[in-house]
């Protein structure tokens, strides 16, 4: 069995390696210490409008929420930060699965590690990979533009910001405007500028040299004139700080909050005019954007790109991933999962059904499999993993964004093989991810450290899907959509799971977060919208007369997954703003309600109508609506009542919800998953 490659020693070596390979556990970052720290909540978030110059410390803001709790036996709760990734680096170069000559591998892109058998070579390979790009290193005049900027060109607040309320759920306002580049490109300069400034949120990523890496809105001609101002903001913060972790700074004008995250060689800036977004929230969003960049190129590549090339244009390396960054910008501010520490949303599924899938994941496990995931839109169905390793919530957030918020992967029948760095798992190297949507909305995601594993993972997927069909968990039918859903899951979710109890408890919508597992469960969003925003008159005025919207509860058993995705994202953003407000209440002393444990807010202004209220008669909404956050040892429970439901009733309802969640424990959480 000779190939022409035999003349190429590198290739030959790699072939030999991959034949022998199994994943070595040593390669992976060690687990964090087994501990259950009390969640440390930021204690000094500014109330809005906050003082003009607020310097938030990362110690309290940047790090906590995504990894508030670690529970090593849980699947997702593991805390792995830069520290543990660092520990892993010594092992990275010895990972057997990464062949020489593979600049994309963990081994070779770890130039910072100079062990005898890999460091130097790694550096060379990396240079090789980047050479074409790095050689050019052109100066494209962007810096030249910087001088002309005025501070007044700040990406300032929108004109309507003052009267904007994020609970004005009938307007477009809450959902963060998605990117509209084409529009902007076509319009005259003046108009484009106006449009650019009218956005409620901006995200910018810059290099230390002030070169643009990414901007949520606007194209170069719009953004570049703002770069000076942005750089000025950033540099005003980048005085050497007392502690290296103090890399987050924030300040606010009366209408706009600015938050900067300095992670050299990158600087990230977010601005927001959304009420109740705090530096904490913006920093969590920025930190995920940063992770997305690492996920595309890894930390060593990022570092080396700028090493000795201060002016490097990173866009050349992250090319093609702008839509992914943009979709993060669009969706994160309204994502309940992201808001709640990137908690993983679990598909409600009968325990025996989940067990079947878990067993199959183990049974059909490909030799080089690291993680195996079955996903429904924005939800986890099942997972298998090595005993000693779990997945980090923020890595999963990136994965879900990639799969469900961009159209790149969702096409049924196309398989994908993607080098991907999961930064919280190991920011120094790529894993290789097999993605296949085997039916609409349902994805099989198989992760390996072996870049040659595609065919074995593909075979595993074939067996898995076949197995799930045989077990009746996935429709055998050939027609797309409708019943091509994990039937058991969807049926339970709709019939037994959430909607009926919710209707009787007087609660409009709720979310429960299992703090230890960093998982959330919630009913389908009530009052969900059709894809197109309904016109006011299309909404039935009687919808809130004590019954759940028919849409959310009954019928349409087989509504297709893609539809659900769109609509749930859409409606949930309205609720997310209320959850965020509650979150801020609880995390901001002086707090209302019972200290740190429970917070109530009243939603009663006409503009604070909920989705089901018709905007044609806002004044007729006389009764107030209560929303509450209750923090207990295992849970955070967020709930919004129906109109007229009192606080006492809400507390009783929350008890019911907790009771229900406990009863359904096996169905709403995934504890551990399948391990091998």
């Amino acid at each position, binding site marked *: 069995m*000779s190939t*022409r490659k035999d003349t190429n020693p590198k290739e030959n070596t790699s072939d030999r390696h991959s034949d022998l390979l199994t994943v070595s556990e040593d390669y992976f970052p060690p687990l964090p210490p087994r501990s259950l720290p009390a969640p440390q909540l930021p204690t000094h978030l500014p109330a809005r409008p906050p003082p003009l110059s607020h310097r938030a410390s990362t110690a309290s803001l940047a790090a906590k929420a995504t990894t508030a709790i670690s529970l090593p036996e849980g699947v997702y709760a593991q805390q792995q930060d830069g520290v543990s990734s660092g520990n892993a680096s010594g092992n990275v170069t010895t990972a057997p699965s990464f062949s020489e000559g*593979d600049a994309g591998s963990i081994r070779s892109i770890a130039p910072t590690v100079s062990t005898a058998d890999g460091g130097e070579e790694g550096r060379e390979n990396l240079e090789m990979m980047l050479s074409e790009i790095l050689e050019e290193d052109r100066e494209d005049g962007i810096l030249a533009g910087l001088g002309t900027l005025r501070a007044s060109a700040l990406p300032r607040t929108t004109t309507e910001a003052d009267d904007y309320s994020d609970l004005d759920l009938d307007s477009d306002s809450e959902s963060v405007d998605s990117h509209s580049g084409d529009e902007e490109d076509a319009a005259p300069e003046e108009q484009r500028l106006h449009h650019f400034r009218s956005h409620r949120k901006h995200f910018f990523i810059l290099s230390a040299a002030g070169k643009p890496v990414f901007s949520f809105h606007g194209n170069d001609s719009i953004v570049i004139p703002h770069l000076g101002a942005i750089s000025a903001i950033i540099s005003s913060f980048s005085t050497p700080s007392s502690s290296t972790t103090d890399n987050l700074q924030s300040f606010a004008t009366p209408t706009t909050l600015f938050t900067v995250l300095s992670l050299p060689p990158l600087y990230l800036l977010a601005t927001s005019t959304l009420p109740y977004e705090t530096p904490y929230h913006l920093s969590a969003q920025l930190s995920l954007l940063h992770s997305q960049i690492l996920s595309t190129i890894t930390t060593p590549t990022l570092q080396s790109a700028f090493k000795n090339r201060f002016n490097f244009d990173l866009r050349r390396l992250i090319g093609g991933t702008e*839509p992914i960054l943009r979709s993060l910008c669009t969706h994160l501010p309204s994502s309940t999962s992201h808001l709640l520490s990137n908690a993983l949303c679990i598909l409600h599924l009968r325990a025996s059904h989940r067990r079947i899938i878990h067993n199959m994941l183990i049974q059909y496990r490909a030799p080089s499999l690291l993680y195996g995931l079955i996903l429904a839109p924005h939800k986890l169905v099942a997972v298998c993993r090595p005993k000693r390793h779990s997945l980090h919530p923020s890595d999963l957030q990136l994965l879900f964004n*990639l799969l469900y918020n961009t159209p790149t992967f969702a096409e049924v029948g*196309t398989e*994908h*093989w*993607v080098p991907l760095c999961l930064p919280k798992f190991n920011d120094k190297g790529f894993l290789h*991810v097999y993605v296949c949507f085997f039916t609409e909305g349902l994805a099989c995601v198989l992760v390996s450290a072996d870049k040659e594993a595609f065919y074995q993972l593909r075979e595993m997927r074939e067996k898995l899907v076949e197995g799930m069909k045989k077990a009746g968990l996935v429709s055998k039918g050939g027609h797309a959509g409708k019943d091509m859903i994990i039937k058991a899951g969807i049926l339970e979710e709709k019939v037994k799971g959430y909607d009926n109890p919710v209707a009787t408890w007087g609660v409009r919508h709720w979310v429960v977060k299992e703090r230890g597992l960093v998982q959330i469960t919630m009913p389908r969003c009530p009052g969900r919208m059709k894809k197109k925003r309904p016109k006011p008159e299309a909404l039935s005025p009687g919808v809130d007369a004590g019954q759940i919207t028919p849409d959310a509860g009954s019928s349409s058993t087989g509504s297709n997954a893609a539809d659900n995705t769109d609509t749930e994202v859409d409606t949930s953003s309205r609720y997310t703003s209320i959850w965020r407000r509650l979150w801020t209440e609880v995390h901001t002393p002086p707090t209302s309600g019972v200290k740190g444990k429970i917070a109530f807010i009243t939603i009663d202004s006409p503009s604070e109508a909920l989705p089901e209220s018709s905007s044609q008669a806002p004044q007729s909404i006389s009764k107030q609506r209560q929303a509450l956050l209750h923090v207990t040892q295992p849970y955070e429970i967020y709930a919004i009542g129906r109109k007229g439901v009192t606080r006492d009733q809400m507390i009783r309802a929350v008890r019911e919800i907790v009771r229900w969640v406990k009863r359904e424990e096996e169905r709403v959480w995934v504890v551990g998953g399948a391990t091998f």
Partner: protein
Amino acid sequence: MSHPRSSTSQRFAQFKLVLLGESAVGKSSLVLRFVKDQFDDYRESTIGAAFLTQTIALDESTTVKFEIWDTAGQERYKSLAPMYYRNANCAVVVYDITQAASLDKAKAWVKELQRQANENIVIALAGNKLDLATAQPSKRAVETAEAEAYAREAGLLFFETSAKTAENVQQLFTAIARKLPLDQQGPRGLRQGAGGRGVDLKGGAAAQQQGCNC
């Protein structure tokens, strides 16, 4: 994975095809046109590589199944490319006829393939976005004759295509299938383990062994 026809009069062959070329020249669009007969004006960049299959009937008795690797073409993935073309029986190297530089990139790919890939690899050069030049001749940046001459010299199949209008897309893939060695074993040194899967010619059992250099 393959389920060849059992009838001895039916020939079934399976080939690995890889698409290479600069980002945004229309590789994914060509595949989408070929596999699903669709076109999407706002297609997002490929991330990593996509794997698709398409089966075509060459004639009444011959069926050819393509296993297609649609690569991303972005620079950061450059080092992964050998993984996709290593066992390929055929390659489509794509450039955009409205972007002169994309032909240079294509030539570089052809060079790399001729040096590194299978000896017998069938390479087709596709000048895509023909519709743009048809509608507005001034948009053309690469003359047909120029590319054709290069293709002849380098021993490549050559087509100008439009994924948008479907012009020459089917023809491109059919021409490749016809040029592939249906009656002899094609690729060398393929192993199951590596996912290699060359011509799998049923009905001519001898062919199975013939070309193997093991």
